[in-house]
């Protein structure tokens, strides 16, 4: 399958070929972003309903009774429906938003242009990976319409709750099987995607684009795809074993002698901890798959708006590689109290604390980059700065969970919810927002409205702190997570705090309408965008907005400079990467 034949042929003509079944990495990137947009709206609405229920459990949600007559008869949400919403919220956000948007979406669009190539190494596989992801999303959404409703075993789907089947409770029948099948399909899609990213970065770099000159976002996508390759290669067999346990009567994860719904299960000999090991071996690298593209995007954007090269680019890349390597040695910190051998707790605690060093270094490099800069504050740079602040808040709360001693108290409480929402739910989202405001002109040839962008930043930045910082306090007070109602006596004094969080969450959710409105309006009627609105230096800014079908109009660039040559004296304080010597 010679590569050249696929891309040099004349651009496709028919609407279908150009916009739907296109092999152009830019179209595929936009399709991933549109899927992530639909997914994030769904996930956010689910979180609204959940938060509203936690604040006011007995008040019916208007209209919900009709949409979900079994789950929320008369609008009052039942415990199993709350857990089903939680499971779908978690699964949609982690897989279909935080893995597709920053990694597959922006990565697909910009990695080839960043390295000066016409397209991905395997365009047809690239198109297949999107459509397989879409199938996975539709299979997951089907769980809403199945008899017993969506599964309720959380996005982590611990066995035997997830493996036994209908007996384990509502949602654990067809809903859980659809979940497992959807995630297995998603794994295949991500493996194909990562294959493409790695092959393209290794082989299709244009003349002069050595690894040292790779833009930082591309470094992040490349390293993320290596992590994703290994992580999803482990989740795929885990899902296959789970599906077999559920459907074919095997007992990989189900021990003997379980009595569920007064029925003695026929399974025997399986190990529930085996699922946790396989899942978290994938799970922790997955959180780095969600955040490393954000690192790359912030390191790509900060120099542009600081008008100053990134501090210690080689150190930054070395830290990315260190994080990638260490991410496979830390999964046990999710299982300190899971019945795993307590000796291994220390074994997993040390690498978990060590991995904070590269993360701390990168954060300091960002702050160091702002030192002595001429900072321009646009929506993109504000979100990049917001990313730094929010990542600090979320990262530091990880210290408590990394040590077994303090994890004894904080495991399974809202402290954990605050930690991973700050780092993944907010920091990664800020990365996506920053990337959108930064690259929208290049992707659509139109400028986004800066005022709306700034309003969106300020309200979201304050909103997310009001939502997730108090969750740390709930965790310290011992508020257990994944509760659909707070009936325990020691939780009653915390209900006002939950109501505050709910109001803040609904407010922050509503603020996102500014972003969606800005997206739609700018896409239709935004002012035309020049080729290089931000005066940046990487290759995508040396081609037209939006780039032509083969990115560089037939003559691939020859790279002569590094990715962030800013701060030169004189009128033009930057040197484009492909500028002749």
């Amino acid at each position, binding site marked *: 399958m010679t590569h050249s034949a696929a891309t040099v042929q004349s651009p496709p003509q028919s609407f279908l070929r150009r916009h739907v079944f296109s092999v152009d990495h830019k179209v595929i990137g936009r399709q991933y972003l549109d899927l992530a947009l639909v997914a994030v709206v769904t996930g956010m609405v689910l979180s609204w309903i959940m938060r509203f229920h936690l604040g006011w459990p007995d008040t019916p949600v208007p209209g919900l009774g009709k949409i979900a007559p079994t789950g929320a008869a008369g609008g*009052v949400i039942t415990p*199993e429906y709350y857990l089903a919403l939680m499971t779908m919220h978690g699964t949609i956000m982690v897989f279909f938003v935080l893995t597709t948007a920053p990694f597959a979406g922006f990565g697909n669009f910009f990695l080839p242009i960043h390295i000066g190539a016409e397209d991905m190494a395997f365009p047809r596989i690239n198109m297949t990976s999107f459509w397989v992801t879409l199938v996975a999303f539709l299979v997951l959404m089907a769980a809403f319409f199945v008899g017993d409703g969506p599964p309720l075993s959380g996005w982590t789907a611990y066995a035997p709750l997830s493996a036994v089947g209908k007996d384990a*409770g*509502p949602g654990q029948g067809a809903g859980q099987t659809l979940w497992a099948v959807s995630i297995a399909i998603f794994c295949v899609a991500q493996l194909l995607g990562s294959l493409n990213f790695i092959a393209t970065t290794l082989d299709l770099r244009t003349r002069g684009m050595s690894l040292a000159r790779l833009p930082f976002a591309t470094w992040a996508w490349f390293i993320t795809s290596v992590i994703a390759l290994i992580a999803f290669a482990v989740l795929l067999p885990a899902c296959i074993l789970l599906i077999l346990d559920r459907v074919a009567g095997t007992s990989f994860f189900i021990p003997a002698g379980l009595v569920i719904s*007064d029925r003695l299960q026929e399974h025997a000999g399986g190990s529930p901890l085996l699922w946790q090991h396989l899942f978290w071996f994938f799970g922790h690298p997955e959180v780095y798959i969600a955040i490393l593209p954000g690192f790359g995007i912030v390191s790509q954007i900060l120099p542009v708006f600081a008008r100053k090269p990134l501090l210690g680019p080689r150190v930054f890349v070395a830290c990315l590689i260190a994080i990638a390597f260490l991410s496979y040695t830390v999964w046990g910190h999710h299982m300190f109290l899971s019945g795993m051998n307590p000796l291994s707790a220390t074994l997993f605690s040390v690498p978990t604390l060590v991995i904070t060093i590269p993360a701390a270094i990168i954060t300091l490099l960002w702050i160091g980059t702002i030192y002595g800069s001429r900072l321009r504050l646009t929506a993109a740079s504000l979100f990049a700065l917001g990313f730094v602040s929010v990542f600090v808040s979320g990262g530091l709360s990880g210290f408590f969970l990394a040590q077994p001693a303090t994890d004894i108290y904080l495991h399974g409480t809202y402290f954990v919810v605050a930690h991973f929402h700050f780092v993944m739910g907010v920091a990664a989202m800020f990365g996506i927002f920053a990337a959108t405001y930064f690259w929208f002109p290049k992707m659509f040839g139109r400028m986004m409205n800066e005022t709306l962008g700034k309003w969106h930043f300020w309200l979201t930045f304050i909103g997310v702190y009001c939502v997730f910082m108090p969750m740390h306090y709930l965790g310290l007070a011992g508020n257990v997570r994944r509760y659909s109602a707070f009936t325990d006596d020691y939780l009653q004094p915390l209900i006002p705090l939950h109501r505050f969080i709910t109001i803040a969450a609904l407010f922050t959710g509503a603020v996102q309408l500014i972003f969606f409105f800005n997206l739609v309006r700018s896409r239709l009627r935004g002012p035309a965008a020049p080729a290089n609105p931000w005066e940046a230096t990487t290759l995508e800014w040396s081609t037209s907005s939006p780039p032509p079908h083969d990115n560089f109009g037939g003559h691939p660039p020859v790279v002569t400079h590094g990715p962030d040559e800013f701060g030169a004296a004189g009128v033009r304080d930057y040197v484009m990467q492909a500028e002749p010597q």
Partner: protein
Amino acid sequence: MIARFTALVALVAVSGGVAGPPHRAAIAGTISGKVTYTGTLPKIRTIDMAKEPSCVTQHSTPVTSEDAVTGPGNSVRYVVVYISAGDQGAAASTDTVRYDQKGCLYIPHVAVMQVHQPLAVFNNDPTSHNIHPLARVNPEWNKSQPKGAPPIRTTWDQPEFIPVKCNVHPWMHGYFVVLATPNFSVTDSSGSFSLTGLAPGTYTVTAWHERFGTRSQEVTIAGSETKTANFVLTARPY
């Protein structure tokens, strides 16, 4: 029983002001009797509802388990006595069977109903319950009923003895007894039952108890007479 009575009255009204008893008085026999047990009873256990204080406060005296309730003279309560064979055409009743959850207990402990008869489950507790009928023949379902939620209304299509449990309060146990016949009666603490309005014929009467098993016997009704049928079930301590 009310439905049958109203049907009878309607019949009389429809047949026009014919004075006096209808032309041919419907011959209706009755089978009644008492259900007792032999053997040693299991220990009477008090239910520990410590986990749900809102239910503990609803009971002044400690609540005992209802799976082996007996009365004076070795009588057995909650025995479902019904016509298992020999029934001529069952007019399906349409009035709703009410099943209450009060004080973290199912009231009545055993709810008997006919196939396709509407059933309504009410939650009158300040806490949320979840109703999980462990049906095998009928489709199984498992629904939560938060405090103040509307009653869950359903019907059962197949005759079956369905144990019902509340997952949130494991001590809560009851039975939905779905029968194909309208002729059934549940014994009270006196252990006595009576099946009325039986046309002449030979019937198999079955007495079922959740823990002490099932007994059947043949009874023949000639005219409008009352036949007695007593049952003795065997009780085992464990």
